[in-house]
């Protein structure tokens, strides 16, 4: 039994057998063969070893001719390992003694070696893990050939373990039998994490090396509520978790009863809780969870597909479906936020050195006006069907906002000329997610219809922390005094300027910050649908007066730690039995 600690993306418990997905999408299932199949598996291994050596020898020759002897030498050790009789014996023994499939035996043996390298102290030797992984992949490619398995073909429920998932892979999980996910990399606010959260099943990320610590077929418990992953649990632990799994379902049912009740404080202040969605179908499921509408529809996920950007008609259909889903309630559509970790990097010939500070979001849209206009036309056409608002991501200057707004007017004119029905009065707002926008908020208030504070990016830019880099992600915290003050100042400016203000980052869905956010004057919060019941439960137990007192006190602390401890203590007073 081994207990690993990571970062939870969505609460819950999942218990099951592991499938491993590596960067090349290979899934290595636990598989045995009948006794008469052992000879075939041994032959597959032999074939794969020979093919791999041959491939490497050719590659080395090419490298030697084109890049010199030093480059070619890099693969000498790979060849040595592939010719290593000990290694071959290890794999063969497992195939013979346990009737394992060749792919599975190879994966287990190679992962055991990776574990040994990981324990070494010399960083140069630890780096050899990559070589071992490389050799494993090469062998598996020859063993599995074209028959590599796809997650969509999982026949029974399983826990997915991987080094990392791309947002695109994550988006496809909903169609599979995967019950829970454990990843090596990742931070709580990466796009993969956001997608995992909206998928709703238990997930723990940032586990460093889970993908090398487990082998396909191991039993794993994902305890996302306590940010743990337990590999090969003993009987007692397993039994304990089966009980907890049932208790968790009961708590979910209890929160479910809140969904028809409004989010009203004890002193009768109505708070609007909206959902953040990625896919049009989630608009309706958010309403079912008790949302007052959609506060953030992240449209870029329409674009994250192999075929490329969707047509105007395809987009129109998606937006119309989302609008129909909220049944007349407000829905805020954010124009595509592409760039950084999503989409554009794969399409660039030359990767940006610093994509987070690069051509992303509204900057990308304004440089790809044709694509941007197609989206705006689709949104404007769909907007006749409901209470639609449009906002732009990452607005950093007034010029950007004006230019984007002008593009909306161009799109309206286009549609009118074409004789299409179109709304002229769609409110146009902005996401406030950069320090520059926060500082200039007063000026923005004169021009925008509403402001939505995107705390995920705002925190990352304010604190200069890459939220996706696990080596610094501990510095990424909404409790930093500078973050609290920025949020307070923006809300205050919006109130004075008579501009509606919503907060739609992860912060909105964390009960830890609910008192603070109400206390600085926010009345609109937008979050992952899964977080709505608990935030609502908290709101119904507190008063605005109490929240204002907590916010004032929280703003008086100098350090992030004091803020977190204080907010946790105050929240626990209200929700003593919930894990905060």
């Amino acid at each position, binding site marked *: 039994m081994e207990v690993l600690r990571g970062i939870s993306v969505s609460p819950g418990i999942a218990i099951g057998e592991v499938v491993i997905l590596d960067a090349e999408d290979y899934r290595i299932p636990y598989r045995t063969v009948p006794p008469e199949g052992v000879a075939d598996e041994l032959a597959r291994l032999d074939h794969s070893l020979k093919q791999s050596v041959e491939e490497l020898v050719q590659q080395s020759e090419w490298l030697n001719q084109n890049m010199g002897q030093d480059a070619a030498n*890099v693969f000498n050790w790979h060849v040595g390992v592939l*010719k290593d009789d*000990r290694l071959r014996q290890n794999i063969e023994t497992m195939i013979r003694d346990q009737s394992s499939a060749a792919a599975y035996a190879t994966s287990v043996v190679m992962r055991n070696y990776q574990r040994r390298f990981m324990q070494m102290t010399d960083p*140069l030797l630890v780096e050899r893990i990559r070589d071992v992984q490389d050799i494993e992949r090469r062998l598996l490619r020859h063993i599995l050939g074209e028959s590599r398995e796809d997650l969509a073909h999982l026949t029974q429920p399983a826990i997915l373990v991987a080094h990392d998932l791309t947002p695109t892979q994550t988006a496809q999980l909903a169609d599979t039998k995967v019950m829970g996910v454990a990843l090596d990399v990742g931070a709580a606010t990466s796009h993969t994490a956001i997608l995992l959260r909206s998928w709703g099943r238990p997930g723990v990320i940032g586990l460093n090396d889970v993908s090398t610590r487990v082998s396909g077929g191991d039993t794993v418990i994902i305890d996302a509520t306590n940010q743990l992953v337990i590999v090969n649990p003993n009987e007692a632990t397993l039994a304990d978790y089966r009980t907890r799994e049932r208790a968790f379902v009961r708590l979910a049912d209890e929160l479910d009863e809140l969904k028809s009740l409004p989010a009203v404080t004890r002193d009768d202040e109505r708070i609007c809780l909206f959902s953040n969605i990625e896919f049009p179908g989630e608009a309706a499921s958010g309403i079912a969870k008790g949302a007052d509408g959609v506060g953030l529809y992240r449209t870029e996920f329409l674009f994250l597909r192999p075929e490329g950007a969707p047509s105007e008609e395809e987009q129109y259909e998606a937006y119309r479906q989302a609008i129909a889903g909220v049944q007349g309630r407000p829905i805020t559509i954010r124009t595509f936020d592409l760039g950084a970790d999503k989409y554009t990097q794969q399409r660039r010939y030359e990767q940006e050195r610093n994509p987070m500070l690069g051509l992303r979001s509204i900057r990308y849209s304004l440089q790809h006006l044709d694509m941007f206009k197609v989206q705006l036309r689709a949104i404007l056409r769909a907007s006749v069907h409901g209470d639609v608002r449009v906002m732009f991501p990452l607005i950093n200057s007034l010029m950007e906002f004006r230019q984007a707004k002008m593009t909306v007017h161009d799109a309206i004119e286009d549609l009118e000329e074409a004789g299409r029905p179109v709304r002229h009065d769609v409110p146009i707002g902005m996401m406030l997610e950069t320090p520059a926008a926060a500082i200039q908020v007063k000026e923005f208030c004169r021009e925008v219809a509403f402001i939505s504070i995107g705390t995920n990016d705002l925190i990352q830019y304010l604190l200069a922390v890459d939220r996706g880099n696990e080596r610094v992600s501990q510095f990424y915290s909404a409790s930093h005094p500078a973050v609290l003050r920025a949020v307070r100042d923006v809300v205050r400016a919006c109130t004075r300027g008579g501009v509606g203000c919503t907060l739609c980052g992860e912060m909105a869905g964390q009960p830890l910050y609910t008192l603070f956010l109400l206390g600085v004057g926010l009345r609109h919060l937008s979050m992952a649908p899964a977080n709505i019941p608990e935030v609502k439960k908290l709101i119904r137990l507190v008063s605005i007066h109490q929240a204002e007192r907590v916010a004032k006190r929280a703003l008086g602390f100098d350090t992030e730690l004091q803020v977190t401890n204080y907010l946790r203590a105050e929240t626990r007073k209200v929700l003593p039995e919930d894990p905060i």
Partner: protein
Amino acid sequence: MRFVDAASKFKSEVWVCNVSRRGERVDGKSAMQMMLLEATSGCVLRIEARGPDAGEAVAALGAMIDVDFRPPGAQ
């Protein structure tokens, strides 16, 4: 890799132990196992051989390490 290649030329079994790290004894003809020795500069290694050419093997491999020891596989 030079060590593994050299060791493989002998008929005898070759075993190497990293005395400095009190590690296990590994097969001197195995590229993977030799890497697990964690034999970095300054470590004391013990070489054992068993077989018809055991004496030559120990002498030759020992001399090789004395002359220019580099971690196996290091470029």
